[in-house]
Structure formats: C-alpha cells, structure tokens
C-alpha cells in the first residue's frame, strides 16, 4: 500500500535502503526543526542513564516540567532503595529566573539530603539553568562539604546538543565517583555491566548467568545501581558495555585511566546473549569459564527452544519495523526477529552513527528501509509501504502502529517486561506472538480491506494451537 506522505527534502539523506548503492547516511546531527523528531534532549540522555542509581538523590534544577515528565516512568527496578523513583525538583519560579536559583538549589539539596539520607546526589541542569548562569558546580561543592556525600553536577541543559551529549554528561558525572571506593578483594574474573538498566530485572537475569560461569559482577552501574558499588567498580577487570551509545564514553575513560578494557555486547536475543558470555570467557582466557559458559547457553537454550519453535511456525515470514534509541539494540533485534522467522523491513534509530548504519545496510535484507532520527509521518509511511505486521519501538511509536492496525512490542525503558537474556528472548517472542497473532487485526479497517485478497486464515486459531 502506498501513502501520500512526502519526505521533507532536508530529511532524504537520512534514509537509505539495504542492498541499494548510496553514499553514507546523514546522521548524528541535531534534528531538523519542525520535523517532529522522536528524540528528546540532552537532559533526557543524562536522566535515563543515571535514573536507576537507586540510593542516590536525583534533583532536577529547573522549572517543574523536566522533573514531572521523568517521575517514575521507567521499568528500572531496584533490589533495595526506592529513592530514585521519586521526583525532586527546584521547581524554579519566575523570581528564581530573575534573581538566580543558586540559593534555592542549595537549600533544596540540604533539606532533601537531610531528609532522605542518600549515598550521593546528582543535580541535573535544565535549559534555563544554562541561561540564567547558576553556578551549579559551586553549589554542589558547598553542599558536598556540608553533608559529606558526593554531590555531582550533571551538565544536562536541554539545548546544548542531542541526547548523546546527555549520555556524555552523565558519564562525566559518574566518572567523578569511580575510583573513590576500596577495590580490595575483587576477583580476577570480574566485570562491570554498563548500559543495562535493569528494566524488569534484566540485570539480575544477566548477573545470574555470569555468576553461574564464575564471573564476579562488581557493579551493574546503571541497573539496580548503588553508589558504593560504582565507587569501587574500577577494581573490575573488564567492562561489558551494552547500550553502547550511552556508556562507551565512560568505558573509554576507565580504559584510559584505570586500564580496564571494554567489550561492546548485547544481551538481547539468543545469539548476542551467548556471544556476550563466550566473549567474556575468551577475554579471561579460561577454558573452565568457557566450559561453564557453554553449559549455561545450552541449558538456557534448551529451556526456551521448543516454545520458540512453536511460535516461529506462526510468525514465519511476518514483517517488522524497528525504531529504537541505539543501534546496538537494533542489530540484536534484527537477529532476534530472524530467530522467530520474521524479517525486518524497516529499521531506524535515534542515535546511530555512520558505522552503525553501514552495518545495518549489510545485515538487513535488500529493500529494508534504514532511517536515522525519523518522525511519525515517515514511520507511518514506511509501515504502510512495507505492509508491516509488527512495530518494535517505544510509547511514542505505539499509536502509529495501533492506529494503522499493526502489532506492537515495547522495547523501550518504560516497558515492564524482561526482554534480555535467554528468558528475555522467550518473553520477547511471547510478546511478539501475542500482538501479531491477535484476532483484533481482523477488524481494523486497514486489514479488513485487504482480507479478501490475502489468504486470511484467522490469526487466533493458529495462535492458540501454538500456545497450547
């Protein structure tokens, strides 16, 4: 089906097709004004990375919006403190904007630290702070001295770049903590997990695999994070970086300063999860670790494989669109979809770079549309033209899919489903099956119209057979 949506001229260079020759894709730039980008801002980048540090106080210095919109919306879980799930803000008012917000911030920090006794505090600057010139670092320093906890300024003014710059600002703030704790007693086979946010307990799933292998996880940093663990995480021997866009900067700093190598991995999908375990074993050069990694993989795959195969029979040949934040997740999703028999017909990211897009062009089937920093109209157009059965994205993409009668799988941080690890692959397949095979699509106008032509066995009959 075609659509009457035209691509903005300033956007055409950010769209490519796998299997078709073409120059490098335009990416890594600020969004085109008025394009209705799905991206957020610098503040968002910092806030998402640091949010799951559970025993820290997170104070947003600015008017209320930025704090309100980021209050307890993510699926990141904590095994202990829940302080991070509150929203603290200086709620700047007009007079603060005129006279400056430093005093208010200082008072707010002192009051909140006294009340909640956090292990550290992060202070996020929002747009307005960058304009009124509050010296947030100086306030943080004074409060740290007065309270004897680390108080870290996060330079996350919304307009000062893109979400990626926010990741960087978060890494810079985190880096101030690293190396301040005692790293004694850490095993020679030890790692940090970076860029896993413990959505629906995913970090716990991953940690358990590594523990079974005999690898010590020193800090999960951004998932079920703890200040004390971060302070001593420089004692680990290897950094595993999952959400590469967000945490590579920190990992590289740790490599330069503390001599800890890094490996980019992904915990999504059977192939990538297994590769992460094998790569780790290989890094430590231990045949014993490798043996145990193989054991973990074969045990876990055996548990999920029969059910995956059943669902695959239903999903074979269905087409998916992927629009996610980072490219590494997109790679994993393309592979995970293949595992359940599906093809990727559209794939895009908010923050991919030129290398990422080259890799997508290579790994996707010819004809797959590849897009950087897309928007609702483009995504709708691609979904219609490629006749998509499943959209994988976040809340902002969900209504695009649903309005057009397309199944949807939430793979963003708001989700409450564990999609990482082997068990996550099973959950992912369950979600995909549940949405793609739902009988409701028989009644939506877009599908109903094409029903007479398509050989339309009712989706629910096939679905139930397989699940049973």
């Amino acid at each position: 089906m075609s659509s009457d949506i035209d691509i903005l001229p300033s956007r055409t260079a950010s769209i490519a097709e796998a299997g078709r020759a073409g120059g490098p894709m335009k990416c890594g730039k600020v969004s085109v004004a008025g394009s209705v980008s799905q991206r957020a801002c610098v503040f968002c980048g910092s806030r998402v990375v640091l949010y799951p540090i559970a025993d820290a106080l997170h104070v947003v210095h600015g008017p209320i919006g930025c704090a309100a919109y980021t209050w307890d919306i993510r699926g990141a879980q904590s095994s202990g403190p829940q302080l991070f799930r509150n929203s603290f803000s200086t709620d700047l008012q007009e007079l603060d904007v005129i006279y400056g917000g430093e005093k208010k911030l200082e008072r707010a920090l002192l009051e909140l630290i006294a009340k909640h006794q956090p292990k550290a505090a992060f202070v996020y600057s929002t747009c307005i702070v960058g304009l009124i010139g509050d010296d947030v670092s100086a306030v943080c320093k004074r409060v740290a001295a007065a309270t004897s906890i680390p108080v870290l300024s996060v330079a996350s003014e919304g307009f000062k770049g893109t979400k990626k710059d926010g990741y960087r600002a978060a890494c810079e703030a985190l880096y101030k903590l690293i190396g301040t704790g005692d790293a004694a007693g850490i095993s020679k086979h030890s790692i940090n997990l970076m860029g896993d946010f413990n959505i629906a307990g995913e970090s716990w799933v991953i940690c358990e695999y590594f523990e079974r292998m005999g690898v010590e996880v020193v800090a999960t940093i951004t998932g079920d994070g703890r200040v004390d663990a971060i302070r001593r995480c420089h004692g680990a021997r290897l950094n595993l970086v999952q959400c590469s866009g967000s945490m590579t900067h920190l990992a590289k700093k740790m490599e330069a300063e503390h001599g800890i190598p890094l490996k980019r991995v992904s915990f999504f999908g059977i192939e990538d999860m297994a590769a992460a375990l094998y790569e780790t074993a290989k890094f430590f050069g231990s045949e014993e670790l490798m043996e145990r990694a193989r054991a973990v993989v074969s045990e876990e795959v055996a548990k999920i494989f029969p059910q995956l195969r059943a669902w695959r029979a239903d999903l074979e040949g269905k087409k998916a669109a992927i629009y996610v934040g980072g490219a590494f997740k997109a790679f994993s999703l393309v592979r995970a979809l293949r595992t359940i028999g599906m093809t990727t017909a559209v794939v895009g990211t908010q923050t991919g770079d030129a290398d990422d897009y080259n890799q997508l062009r290579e790994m996707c089937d010819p004809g797959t549309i590849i897009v950087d920093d897309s928007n609702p109209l483009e995504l709708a157009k691609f979904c219609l033209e490629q006749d998509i059965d499943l959209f994988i994205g976040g809340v902002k993409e969900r209504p695009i899919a649903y309005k057009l009668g397309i199944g949807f799988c939430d793979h963003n941080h708001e989700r409450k489903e564990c999609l990482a690890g082997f068990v996550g692959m099973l959950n992912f397949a369950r979600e995909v099956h549940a949405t793609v095979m739902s009988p409701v699509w028989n009644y939506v106008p877009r599908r109903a119209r094409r029903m007479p032509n398509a050989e339309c066995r009712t989706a629910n009959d096939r679905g139930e057979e397989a699940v049973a």
Partner: protein
Amino acid sequence: MSCSSCKPSLPGPALVNEGDEHPEFPSSSTNPCKLCTPLGACLAFKGIAGTVPLLHGSQGCATYIRRYMISHFREPVDIASSNFSEDSAVFGGRKNLHTALENVTRQYKPAMVGVATTCLSETMGENMPMLLGEYRAEATQEGQPALVHVSTPSFKGTHAEGFHAAVRAIVETLAAPRSTLERLAPIALMPGMVSPADLRHLRDLVSWWGVPATFVPDYSETLDGGSWSNYERMPSGGTSLDEIRALGSARATIECGLVLAGEKSTAGTHLAAKFGVRLHRLGLPIGLRQTDLFCGAMEEAANAVIPERVERERGRLIDAYVDAHKYLSGRKAIVYGEEDLVASLAVFLAEIGVWPVLCAAGGRSGRLESAILGAAPELKGRIEVREGSDFGEIETQIAELKPDLLIGSSKGYKLARSLGLPLVRCGFPVHDRIGSQRIQMLGYTGTLQLFDCIVNALLEKKQEDSEIGYSYL
C-alpha cells in the same frame, strides 16, 4: 494557603529563613502535582481542527509532552519543535522557528499552527509576535496556516494555566465581529481540561436544547478517534477555524472552571469585552448543583427550558445519591490535581456526604479555597485547602487525616498503595489504566459514572477487608 480553622498541628508551608528572596515558595518539590504550562497549551491546540502544536524551545519539551499525552490518550500526538541548539540560545531562535514553521506546513499542511513558548525561549525574551509576523511576511509556500501564539513559560503557572492561556489566545486571535451572513448564533463553550468522553457527553447534553455550540477546544475526536486505514496527519475532528471566527456573534459564553472564574482575562472575558457576548462563569458541571447551574445557563442562553430527557437524567442521579448515601456518609477523601478539577470535585463530594478533608492542587491561583467555599459553603472550617502542593506534602498530612479514599490522577497511586487506600482515577494523567480518555464526570450522566466508581471503590475495599467476604451487600 490554609483555611481559617485549620488544625495547628498540620504542617504549614515549608519554613523559610529571613533574607530569602521569595519566601512564599518552598525550596523544592517532591513528586509534583502539576505539569508544565506548554503541555496544557498543546492539549488545547489539539482540539482545533487541522492544528499542529509547535513548541518554541528544546526538542525534549515536545517529546516529553508527546510521550506524556500519548500514554494517557493512547492516540498519536504530534507536536513539532523549533529544536533549539546552543546557537539559537545565543543568537535567538528566529531561524529555527521559521524552519520549523516551514517544515510543519510542508509536512502536515495544517489549517493552523499553535505556537507555544517554553521556559527557554521565554527566558531569552524571544519576541514572538515579531518573529511570527516576519515569517508571515516572508513565507512563499502556498496555503499558509493560521498562526496562534501563546506565551507559556513553564516557570509560571501549571499545565492548567497553559491550557486556559491557549484557549484565550485562540479566541483572541481568531474571533471576528458579527458577520453579515445570517446564521444561528452559537453558544461558545469553554469546557476546561476535561476528557474526550466528557466533551462528547457535554456536546450531546447541549444539543438537546436545540442550539449549536462551539467548543473551544474540542479534542473529543482528535484524542479519542477510531482506527485508521491510512495515516491521518492531523486526526479528524476538532473545532474548525471558521467556527471560532464566528464566535464574535455567539449568543452567550459558558466558561467552566470555578478557579478560572476569578481570572481577569480569559477567552470568555475577551468575547464579553470585545463583542458583548454574555458570559456565564461556572464550575465544571460535576454533581447536581454545578450541573443545575450549567443547565440554568443553557436555559438562559438557548431561551428554552430544560429538556425532559435531561430532567430524567437529573432524577436518576438523585436516585443514585439516595441509594448509596449510607455507604458514603461521613467518609473522608483526599482530592488532588489541577485547581478547577479539585474545586468542582470538592463541591460534588460535599453534596454526597463525603468530606474532602484535603483539597490539594499544584497551581497557585490564590483562589482555590474561596472557589470551593463559594460553591459549597457547608465545607467552611471542615477542610484543608492547599495550593502549590505536591505529593510529598500530601504524604506528610495523610496519616493524620485518615482518609478513606483518594481521588485524582494515577500519580497518587504510590501513596494509595502504601496506605492501602482505594484510588478513584480521574483527571490527567491516568497512566496505569486503559480508558483514561473515556473517564466521565460531567453532567448528570457523567457524574453518575464517577459516583458509581466512588461508591464501588469503597464497597470493594470494605469487601476486601472483611474476614467474612460477603458476596451480597
């Protein structure tokens, strides 16, 4: 702010030290009971046919607000951004704004672009009328949209103020003097921040008087529409620009909101001052008394008595009040949210025998308490009213107040859960249930829906807490 007889043991506003620049505000907010002004403006713009909201500021503002609204309405909410960079923050956002307008016009072909500012552009002092005037003068593309601008600095007011400011801006910009064309003069209806289902019901209710009504805004279809066979750039529905232009010849304005009624300049006061349109300022029609007043205004505006079917609805509501009164009598509720909602809910609760022990709003109009007591004098001395409140503050009061239930957005869930109290969800946002856009409370019939929810929430709690577990109550 607190009522004259509030208990001295209740904590007052945060203590402030001498020498503070503006001691009326606490230094921080914990778990806010408000959102920022541009969100309200975007919601209002979504109720105008063929309109794309555009925020003049950072990309994040548009994206956060979109996500927040999408999670509530479960509909596409496209909001454009002029996407400031460091350059635009230093040299001004003219270029970005113009590019954004161009691109929105090209992509969406809108009838109108609703331009709202943000804390960033307001702090920079962007001269919006000038920037938009220049754009209009320089635009070469065919089919230029109407441009409506509203000033919505997020450091001033809440999403409710942003909403009302946008409604006012729409009417001020578009409403024109009486046209020579003969037409049946409509009633101008400013319903306030209510749900799409409430808008639909209100529209039905008004239609039974047999006069046309122009709702500003009307997102009853745009934010709660059907399934599509092709992608709608701007979801169908909404009040057309022509309908708004004709408001100069409206026969009357009904503007809902007890707190809004004390606002000096609104869409309604504008129509009254400029075109001499009779203005009725009422509460949201929740409950019997406030819906009676609404129907009274309708009778006057339509010059027709209350339709029989509305009378029957009214009767059904009173009957329900009687059926359930013993389950409600003396129960205590905490009501929170935007001021107009809190005020009208409190007035409604008073008439069913539920005591709104704490009425907390994020806004700071200075009029919340008088708005409630003006409409429900029987509450005088019996309730605590808090402006500029947040859930951190509500939490500190809740143990002492011992409420039986909470009424408000899903943001109160954490509190309700920790205390094991029922939460009746209404207002904005409701992010943890399906059907948030269809929660009803307006008119006799809408009130009945809310009333049933409240009674049943209390019954369910009683049933759950009972060791016996009666299945016959």
